[in-house]
């Protein structure tokens, strides 16, 4: 048989082409700048549960329910567990919050490995891509660490190594995030690399860096980074009308992703806007509604209202367009100037620069159609409470800001233990972190569970 085999040259008979028609290989992908860009597009592109890990509205729903922003009408849906603090390690609601960021982090790490020292990619492009990817990676880790606490720090594509990583400490993750962002700030230019504001520039890196420093209590750094962005002529706030904040052309945007598909726009709009004549699935809580002062235009522009059987129901309405045919197009906002202004305000208050803090608060209030708060003698605590209240109304339903602000314990009055104990039942300090999915712990027994979960 061997003889026969030699006669026919067996290897030839089972030879396949270099790649199947539907796939390309690693070497083919990193062969030139154009195909590398297709992998970069893979990191930003939106599709349900596949592309950009946070665009499926689940982060907004989960954190909105966990905080005091939203309630869910269907108290039997698994999202209800976020509201009632009855999550378990088996809850299906947490699976995507954990898994999708890691899918994306793999793609980022893969691109970083593919462009680093690759002679076929120009140095400037490699630098640009490296900066962008590090912003993306830092963003994912920032949200992982704020939802779950310390998480495995995956920085390569080596699955054998990565599969056995335990959770790193919160500090280690934050250190890594800061290093990534500092590299990104150094690598990226002030200009956006492509049309619109859909790929990070230097200010995008700074926006996240500012947020990170704010969360870590490094007030001066938070202040400085936010300040850099606010003074940049690229961005406007006061001139952007409330109803234009989330549009594709928004000048307030620091980073926003195009998410429109052929038939729909943001998942937020899809999820929150009720069908006509129907009660919304997610209702804005009375606690949040009560925070809007009389005349606050944000209540009119950003909170929807529908009436069913003579009862009024309120729902999140920052994103207004469900279907692709509705104009204008909305992009999914990641960072905007309003948040930076409030970040600077909070940092300033902590730095005892209360005047600056109040000025910033008033910029935000003014656009909302509210009276400015007077610059009279206020304690630092009062100013901080005012910042937190403004954050609550300005940044509601955006990127878990409210839930994370409550957990940060900025002031006693605005801390989770005060607010959630008052408003809701079932809250425990251990509710601050979501459980690590048990399925993941089964696959990696080095992953320790958060306190309060079995």
């Amino acid at each position: 048989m061997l003889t026969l085999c030699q006669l026919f040259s067996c290897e030839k008979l089972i030879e396949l082409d270099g790649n199947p028609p539907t796939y390309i290989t690693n070497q083919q992908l990193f062969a030139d700048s154009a195909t590398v860009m297709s992998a970069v597009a893979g990191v930003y592109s939106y599709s349900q549960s596949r592309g950009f890990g946070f665009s499926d509205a689940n982060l907004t729903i989960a954190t909105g329910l966990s905080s005091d922003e939203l309630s869910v009408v269907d108290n039997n849906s698994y999202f209800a567990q976020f509201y009632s603090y009855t999550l378990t390690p088996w809850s299906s609601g947490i699976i995507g919050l954990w898994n999708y960021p890691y899918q994306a982090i793999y793609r980022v790490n893969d691109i970083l490995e593919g462009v680093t020292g690759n002679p076929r990619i120009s140095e400037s492009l490699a630098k640009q891509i490296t900066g962008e990817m590090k912003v993306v990676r830092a963003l994912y880790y920032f949200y992982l660490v704020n939802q779950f606490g310390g998480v495995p720090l995956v920085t390569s594509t080596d699955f054998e190594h990565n599969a056995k990583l335990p959770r790193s400490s919160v500090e280690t993750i934050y250190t890594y995030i800061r290093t990534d962002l500092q590299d990104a700030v150094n690598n990226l230019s002030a200009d956006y690399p492509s049309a619109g504001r859909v790929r990070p520039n230097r200010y995008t890196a700074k926006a996240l860096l500012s947020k990170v420093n704010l969360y870590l209590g490094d007030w001066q750094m938070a202040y400085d980074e936010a300040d850099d962005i606010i003074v940049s002529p690229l961005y406007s706030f006061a001139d952007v009308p409330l109803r234009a904040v989330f549009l594709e052309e928004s000048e307030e945007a620091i980073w926003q992703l195009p998410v429109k598909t052929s038939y729909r726009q943001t998942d937020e709009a899809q999820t929150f806007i009720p069908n006509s004549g129907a009660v919304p699935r997610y209702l804005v809580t009375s606690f949040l509604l009560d925070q809007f002062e009389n005349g606050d235009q944000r209540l009119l522009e950003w909170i929807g209202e529908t009436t069913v059987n003579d009862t009024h129901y309120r729902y999140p309405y920052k994103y207004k367009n469900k279907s692709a045919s509705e104009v204008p197009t909305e992009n999914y906002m990641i960072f905007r100037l309003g948040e930076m202004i409030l970040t600077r305000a909070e940092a300033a208050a902590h730095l005892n620069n209360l005047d600056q803090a109040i000025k910033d608060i008033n910029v935000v209030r003014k656009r909302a159609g509210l009276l400015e708060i007077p610059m009279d003698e206020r304690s630092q605590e009062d100013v901080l409470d005012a910042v937190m209240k403004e954050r609550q109304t300005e940044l509601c339903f955006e990127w878990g800001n409210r839930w994370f602000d409550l957990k940060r314990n900025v002031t006693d009055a605005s801390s989770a233990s005060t607010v959630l104990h008052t408003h809701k039942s079932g809250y425990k300090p251990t509710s601050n972190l979501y459980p690590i999915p048990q399925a993941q712990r089964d696959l990696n027994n080095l992953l320790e569970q958060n306190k309060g979960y079995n």
Partner: protein
Amino acid sequence: MRLTLIILITTLLQVRATALAQHITIHKKDVTLKYALKEVRRQSGFNLFYDGKIITDKQKIDVDIDHVTINQALEVILRNTGLKYEMKGSNIAITKSQTRPSKPIILGEMAQIVITGLVLDESRKPLVDATVQVKHGEKVTKTNADGRFYLDGIRDGETLVISFVGYGNREISAAKDLGAIQLIPLDKTVDEVQVIGYGSESKRFSVGAVSSVSAETIERQPVTNPLSALQGQVAGLAVTPSNGVPGSTVMLQVRGQNTLGTTLQAKPYDQPLFIIDGVPFAPQNVNINLLNNLATAQSYNGGISQPTGLSPFNSINPKDIESISILKDAAATSIYGSQGANGVVLITTKKGQAGETKLDVSVNTQFNSAAKPVRFLNTQQYLQLRREAYTADGLSPSDDPGDYNGFAPDLMLYDQDKYTDWAAIIAGKMTNNTDVHATLSGGSPSTTFLISGGYTQSNYNYPGNFSDKRMTFHSALNNTSSDQRFKLGLVADYGYDRNTSARYGGAQSMVLPPNLPDLIDDSGALVWNYKGIPLNVENFYGSLMRPVYLQNYNFNGSLHLSYTLLPGLTLGTNAGYSRNNSIERSENPARSQDPTFAEASAAFGDNVNQSINIEPQLNYEFYTGKGEWTALVGGTYRKMSNDAYQVEGYGYANDNFLGSIIGASTTYPSERKNLFKYIAGFARLKYIHDHKYILEVSGRRDGSSNFGPGRQFGNFGSAGGGWIFSEEAAIKKNLPLLSYGKLSASYGTTGGDASKAYSYQALYQNISGVLPFQNVRPTYAYNLYNPNFSWSTKRSLNVAMDIGLYGNALNLNATYYRNRQGDQLVDMPLPAQTGFPVVFGNLDALVQNQGWEFTIESTNVKKENFSWNSTFNITFNRNKLLDFPDLASSSYASKYIIGQPTSIIMGYRYKGVNPETGLYEFYDKDGNATHTPKAGNANTGGDQVPIGHMDVKYMGGLANNLSYKNWGLFIFCQFSSSYSPNYLAALYSTDYPGGPTNQPSEILGRYWKNPGDHSLLQRLGSSYASGSLYTIPPFTQSEAVYGDNTYLRIKTVSLSYTFPEKLLQKIGVSTGNIYMNGQNLLTFTNYKVGDPEQPGTFTALPLQRIVALGVNLKF
């Protein structure tokens, strides 16, 4: 080996016709024998074959011939060389003259005679159409209507072989008047010829573990999927139906699970290799649909990790199958090398029989209903349960959607008296199926044909206009040349299946609240909210308006050519092509959706599986003294491909455009292409000595494109032996009861290549379903890079004992086997932090399956008017993870334990419902009671311990076949016992008692209400606001949701009546019968609520009870 080579090469070169240049002239002195023979070949144009060993360059001769015939020339040349020649057509074989027991034919000196004879059966009745053949010659004839035959031109003393189907061959020396020759019927159980890999063999001399299921057994079962007909029939073969949807998949597994799982949740299920008429079935047993339909929408997939859906075998009519052989051990499967690790299923289709052209028509109509329907609560019971749940939670039901804790529309808003029995709507319908099949067959002794056509319509007992319609065409043509040397067999089958189903929905809606407001209004429009409150359910009637059409076209063609080069030596080729194509369309019309955001969309799929298979083979049968040799050498070239194309279209302006992609304003295509190329050489040698001792070796070397360079080739082989001790004189003398006894054993290797194309590279794909990002089409990584994988290897031991008693009226088979599969080639699960759920590669783990199989076949009564046969089989398989280095640090650490079955369940030990708290209680690893056991294995600090395993403990079947005069009765019972999920697992799978979904009425009065109660279920919970639900996750992972699941199912009852021949002849019918076949008629089980074959669920579309009434006529 060299002989083979020479023959092969000579054959390849030989095209030249015999010019019959019979005048050979050679005048040479002291030339080599080889030279002289070469000269004969050159001058005559005849082909000469010889083994290089028997003629050396040292043999020199003098030749002096002038214008002589080839016979004379060879006589002269071979004189005094100890060699002889045989002539067949234009081929001449030269062999050593003493090695051949039979005499050379071409002597020409003996007188030619005319012979006559009469062939009789055991009761001395004439046998019509028996074959009478010259053993090493070309002459052949058949007996006439009186059983007589005539043959002329036969030499006295030449050996004749007389054969007839079902009878043993008889060899006899030719003489003028042979008188009456009686043939002895073969013992059906012992001498049955069964199909094996690359051939067939008598069971008597088999050393491999092979089981066959005959057409008779298959036809009695009113099933549409031929795989369903195997359930319980074969020891060692597990058959798992996925659900009751017509056309849905049926999984097979031979002798247990050999590989580790891909996920920690679902049970992996190895599938055997499927071969139809020698050609690998292109789709194998993988579902053929790309799009979702009712078969995929079932919440239950048998608990196994294979995707379920529509079965490719649905395009094959069980009535066209002659036999199905299951090859189980290495002796039988090694010849399939790397593809045989999970066993091989050989399906052989029907072929024509020589004789009058016959028409065989069978028509039946079937009535289907749920085999084991489940009863749910009525409205009063349901509402009572809900109210009690609120009371238990200390909450008040409210009609305010803003009242998170209390909002209960079913209690506060919906009509409290409305009652809809959803289970009855969804699966309560009795359906009517139709099956028609006609066969035309016949032929002459040299050419036979068979063509058949079938039509089967299966309706869903799901409401709506859904059905599965199948049309099949089968044809077989066989021809043998008049000299019996050239044989041709052609099979061409075409099947068409049209499945109409719904896009999603399915039986899960059985648990909708019984007082749910109407989902459809008087005008037939769908209702999406009730008084403004969204009905948080999938609108069941909306799902019925989303049709999915699947059309499956299945072609199986095979061509078998063979040519007998020399007596016993046959060169042949099997070539075949199998193509299975599914074309699908799925419509999601706007009118089936909530009008406030309706988006008409459609999806289209085209899934093509193809396999091309070419297998040249050389068979050689020869005799040495008392020895009988069978040798086979062959090669395989195979190419299998899967091309799946799918496109989704959105933005249709009008629902009526949904039939075409053209109307979509946006399309999202996606594509999958897999190509597998395979090459192999294989050989088998079998030696039977004195009808007593059997020795068999086989092997295969194969190469697969699924592996990276340098890892493509592997070697597999087996050796087996048998001893028919009943042939020993001492045993014959001392144990007269024993009519047959065989001890056989085999050991060998097979491999697994896991059929995954291209995976040794790091691949990236364009993802469909997304718009380009700034005009760039996004690319994502498809897999993790892991190039270093290769075959998994299975080592199998098989020891069997066969006993026949009382003249084989009672036959027993006992088999012990032990399979060990190492170098596991699997999709290894990975934690999500790696970015991927799995990586494909080898795992240094060893899984063992060992077990016992027993089969008993018995003829209980055999009288003229009454006969009764029984068969019984039972299998005990034990699975064990033998070895797994680094298990503790692998991703499998929480799932497997060395020394335990791979279906082990890690869970909590269950204490019961605490009578005081009313909540489920468990034991922690130290034996203390707790409501909150810790997740994870005991060895990593958790409280989970092994609580059982889900392997089948034993399974089998019992068949009784009775006939009395014109009546026939066949009763087949199938049984199985395992530890499996019970219905309590399903109670909490999507919801919980007290929540807003319906429950089986079984739970009434069985839940905790007051302190001191001892109950099965814990207290009710009204919603996630309830403080009682935290015990649910541990409960569903505890012993409480598993239990013994033993059942005995009256799988098939077939009652038939054959009309008296006289009556039929008047209307031109030769034979005819009417029958009633029943499937899944009655089940005896300790399994509660639902079907024991669908354990752990009560919301899957139930398996069907079928009663078929039919008539069968032969013209």
